């Protein structure tokens, strides 16, 4: 379904290589910050040796996305984020910084939250990928998604899918243990929100982890009402 027309080689070789270099930078960084190395390391065949190289023609890729097996062909330079957004219509996953600094593009790869802008699409060969859409649709929200709505853990909503991925990974990891605010803060430390939803995100996650309403509101509303004695300004 996502098979795209690849650019013709002769005309665009240089361009493709450029894209590949960019992707290599990303792949190396990912390798540096996660436990497992990505399955593919294209460094060694970056430039000259064209025969059998990955990167100049689309390469077959199979993985599971939000519960559905995918079988397609992608170019080596294509990031996982671009594949999701441009080819597979998973636009709930957002592009914000494109270099691993904000967490808006987070997806779960085999239960580990990863910045999809920092992975190549080919890195998820054989893996299971869950995007925000895989957590629950608008008419069958998961408990965590519902808690986000109830606690108003979103404003513009652009960071929200990343926040949800980080925090649902936390809930999976903690498997029913009671959580502290600091645990949630650790989990979403890589998610940037410009609207300032952090306190409500923490409230929402705690309400799911620990049950009940969860949050101390810290809000006092002093209504304009005549006192029982007498008014007078």
């Amino acid at each position, binding site marked *: 379904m996502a098979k795209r027309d690849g650019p013709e080689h002769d005309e665009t070789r240089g361009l493709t290589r450029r894209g590949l270099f960019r992707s290599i930078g990303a792949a190396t960084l990912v390798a540096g910050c996660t436990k497992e190395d990505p399955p593919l390391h294209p460094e060694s065949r970056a430039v000259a040796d064209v025969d059998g190289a990955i990167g100049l023609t689309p390469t077959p890729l199979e993985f599971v996305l939000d519960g559905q097996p995918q079988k397609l062909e992608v170019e080596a330079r294509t990031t996982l984020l671009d594949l999701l957004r441009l080819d597979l219509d998973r636009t709930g996953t957002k592009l914000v910084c494109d270099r691993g600094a904000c967490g808006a593009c987070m997806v779960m790869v085999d239960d580990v939250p990863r910045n999809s802008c920092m992975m190549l699409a080919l890195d998820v060969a054989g893996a299971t990928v869950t*995007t925000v859409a895989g957590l629950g649709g608008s008419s069958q929200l998961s408990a965590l998604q519902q808690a986000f709505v109830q606690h108003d853990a979103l404003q513009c909503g652009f960071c929200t899918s990343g926040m949800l991925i980080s925090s649902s990974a936390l809930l999976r990891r903690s498997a029913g243990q009671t959580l502290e605010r600091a645990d949630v803060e650790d989990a979403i430390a890589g998610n940037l929100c410009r609207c300032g939803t952090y306190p409500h995100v923490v409230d929402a996650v705690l309400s799911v982890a620990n049950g009940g309403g969860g949050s101390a509101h810290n809000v006092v509303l002093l209504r304009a009402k005549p006192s029982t004695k007498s008014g007078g300004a």
Partner: protein
Amino acid sequence: MPGKTKLSVGYGPNIKTINVELPPSEPRPWDTVDDMTVVGTPQPRIDGPLKVSGEARYTHDIALEGLLHAAVLRSPWPCAKVSRIDVGPAAKQAGVGAAIALVGVGDKLIFAGQDVAAVAATRPELARAALASIIVEYEPQPFVVQTRDAMRDGSPQVHEAAVEERRTGADEPGAERAQGKLSGNVRPGRSQKRGDAKRALNKAPVRFEATYTTQCHTHSCLETHGVVVRWNGKKAATVWASTQSIFGVRDEFAALFGLEPSKVQVITNFMGGGFGSKFGANASGTALAKIAGDLARAADKPVKLMLDRAEEHVCTGNRPDSIQLVKLGATNKGKLTAIHVQAHGTAGIGTGAGVGRNAASVYTKVPDVLVESADVFTHAGPAVAFRAPGHTQGAFAMESAIDELARQLGMDPIDLRLAHDAHPVRRWQLELGRERFNWDARRKAAADMRARNTRVRKGVGCAVSIWGDFGGTEARVTIEIGRDGRVVVKNGVQDIGGGIGTVMAQVAAEVLHRPVEEIEIQIGDSKLGPGVGSGGSKTTSSITPAVRNAAELAKAELAELAQTALEVNSTKNLRWTAEGVSVGRQTLSWADLCKRIEGEAIVAVGFRARNSAAHPRSFPGFETPEIAGAQFAEVEIDTWTGEVRCTQVLALHDCGRVMNELTLRSQINGGIILGTGYALMEERVMDPSLGVMLNANLEQYKACGVKDVPEISIVLTEVISGNNSTGAYGIGEPATIPTAAAIANAVGDALGVHVRSLPITPAKILDALEQQQRASQGGTK
């Protein structure tokens, strides 16, 4: 009908009755006597499920048949003449549908990041790759990017002639065009004046003088600026835009291409943050809508242009930096007699985004005040209004100076403020904050830590804000009540994250006694009728009165149907409840009532009337209520490393009538968190020798993450003014004004010396401590 009526207005227990004259068709504003059942309650936002499932489609997410993706080549030089440009090679690259030059030979480029050429291709990476083949030759010229350098005689001049000022709906309401004459790179702007501040300063027995500086701060919206343009023939277009002003985009797009505004449809179903930067079709430093429109025409395909993160930092606006010289005059007993502020700041090549004003307007009891401000041109991307333009810089300087003067006079800074601020609500907030923040005890504890010279110090500070209800009258809200009982509320306003759709539903639900979830809200499209730009914190106060007024008109029609059906003499005898409408024991259900509607639906249109009351005080120069706010902050500082954290903030705000406590809390949190980043972390760094921004990303441009956020408490001091039919004001901007100033004052309290420069980094703290130590060793106090 046009009427004089009495309203019960006020704040807290201070309620009084005022007479107001209402325009025709205006319902009696909800006052303190009205009991609300839906308005004011915490309601989760109605589009929450779409946002948490990723189903909400932002401009970034629009996919259309044949859509091309655009990329823009930008000037690498801060100042250069173009000596050659050839986009021909780009047009031949794979996947490219169009390539256009945006400058010609001989054109002068005046900031690094300015538009040079653009390409549209089938994939974003192909568009970016094609840019590399465009041939441009530049003749670099001298430039200046630092504000102080630009103010020096003989520094390279950014503009040779008068500058056309770009104004947007996010500018400070009432701000007139600056008239000052350009001298070098400095152009004087507006000044605020009362009495003769210079003379009063000369006569003052106590004088205080200090220079405060603030950094350039970028909006950093998570969704970058962007548009999708689809031409529908030659004379009409559909534009999806990430904007705070659908109608601003429509009008500018129409003007750019010589179209009838009515032939341009603008859609913003969801948008990922604007903070003042997203007004108009183009951004302040890049003609994105013009580029996308031209590319779409050239390629004969729809085109999407979404900026990348670096572009977002350098060419879509920022909050100008500032250098503010503040002079205060006072008597020995602590009576302020004069305030004189001279503020300079750079809006890059632009103007008018505010470099520090307004804060002095709080102190109405000071007889002589002069606030002068001037734009300084530099070869950097143009600034644009940013959440409370001019106010945050002004509040930092003024509120810092007040604290420093209090220290000099040995006074409590709250007492000094109370003595010069006549706004009763702000005075009340300061008193409430003093008590709830445990101010006296914490100040003592801070003094004790200073005296013992502890490694870790704590301190507390407070600062205040001023804003107004700038709600506009231009919106037209339509309500339809169908024979099937459906209620649809329509308006072409955009939701920038505040949750306007949700409060619209609440207001309609309140008037019609319907459940919130049964009100259908349609917003985000210019076809839905005139909305209002979301700037000046006026969306809620412009739109909700129009919703109420439309709902009241529709209800009046329903009431007539009910009157006939229930055979009563007057609609006044009808009781409206969740079940429907009743008289005595007789009840007509909502469904049965709606079945009596003739034709398909009742359709009513409402708008907000002009202001009717400004209780308890008006905003200076306006006939609209002044909005008061005060914030208290606590900081913790490691004096060995200079590490500083803001640990707690107490925010006390007036936002008129509270419409939705939940989304309101979100906005206040957001203002405080933005202000915390401004106080301690965020800063655009320009390289003076290359003239480029060094940290145009999100890892070195440091916005607050969750661990930088203080514990926040909020006190809402509701004010009912009768100013509009719902009584709503705004909160988006007021909530961010005092934060940085309060944090700076807390740092001053912790250290015993003020850090006069934002952001307050560890290095600046260590510097301040060192100077303090030197001063005490030098024998001076």
